[in-house]
């Protein structure tokens, strides 16, 4: 089944530079409907108010971290099936295990390249 690249994608990171990089990389692979949030709290508000097909989130943010956002998403009846990719510098085994246990769809470690981002998005959306 072809991927719907017109879907709304929410990218979450407290570094504006990182949001800008991810937005541009998504644009290069034809995802043009991208919204941004600076932390988990803002992201959760946008997810509850909007209609998104994918979340790409950093982990280390305040006041709500990416892991807490993921837990909130999975606990929300309307959002619980939302594809959720974590992009983070947290690369310890316990981080990946915690994210997987919380229901992450895929996990990308920083620094990452465009090919990895494209591959993980395609893999996650193929299972939707």
């Amino acid at each position, binding site marked *: 089944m072809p991927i719907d690249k017109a879907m709304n994608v929410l990218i979450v990171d407290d570094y504006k530079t990182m949001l800008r990089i991810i937005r541009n990389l998504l644009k*290069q692979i034809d995802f043009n409907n991208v919204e941004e949030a600076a932390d988990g709290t803002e992201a959760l508000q946008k997810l509850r108010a909007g209609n998104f097909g994918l979340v790409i989130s950093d982990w280390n943010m305040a006041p709500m971290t990416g892991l807490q956002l993921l837990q909130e998403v999975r606990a929300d009846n309307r959002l619980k099936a939302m594809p959720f990719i974590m992009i983070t510098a947290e690369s310890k085994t316990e981080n990946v295990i915690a994210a997987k246990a919380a229901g992450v769809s895929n996990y990308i470690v920083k620094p990452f390249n465009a090919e*990895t981002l494209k591959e993980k998005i395609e893999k996650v959306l193929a299972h939707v």
Partner: protein
Amino acid sequence: MFDAKNDKPLGGVQALKRKLTEIRDRQPDTEPATITEVVRAVLTTISDELTAKESSLLREVEELGRMIASTKSEIAALRVDDITDRDIPFATDELDAIVEHTAHATNAILESCELLDEVAATVSGEAAAKLQAATTKIYEACGFQDITGQRITKVVGTLKTIEAKVAHIVSAFGTAGAGVRAVPVHVASDADLLNGPQLPAHAMDQSDIDRLLADF
């Protein structure tokens, strides 16, 4: 022992001299050698009352006292107030400035890159592909700003921990660091999982993570 005129304590040697003078005034015939003999006998008695273990303990206590006094002097010489009030804040400000400057420079690079992407959209074929490949690489490379920012944040956290520990040590000795307060370290709820970027030798790469995820 007190000075009869001023009712103030006398120094040890001065008091002893005063006492010896009093004895000599009362007993002018007393030979100095006799007094010396008596004093020596008293000291020997005191010394004989201490066991070898107690004497050893006494020496160790005296040595500890000297070490504490020496450490206090060394801490005073460190000028801890300078470290906590000036040096560490200066270092953290400098590091914050690095983050700010790299963010500024990265945004300028990204702006130019976005312009190149716009140009790429107006051409076709090999030229368009080459332009996009180049801008993709620039976007990927600009991720350094996020990574270095997180590393610097870790260093700032470490400096603040050192500051708090230095203040704690000084306060424990009760000297030199008067006015130095321990800085409370902020602990996030999932702080044990927030380690930030790892050095390459300690990090899992993407293939390690893919393997780990596949194990579930």
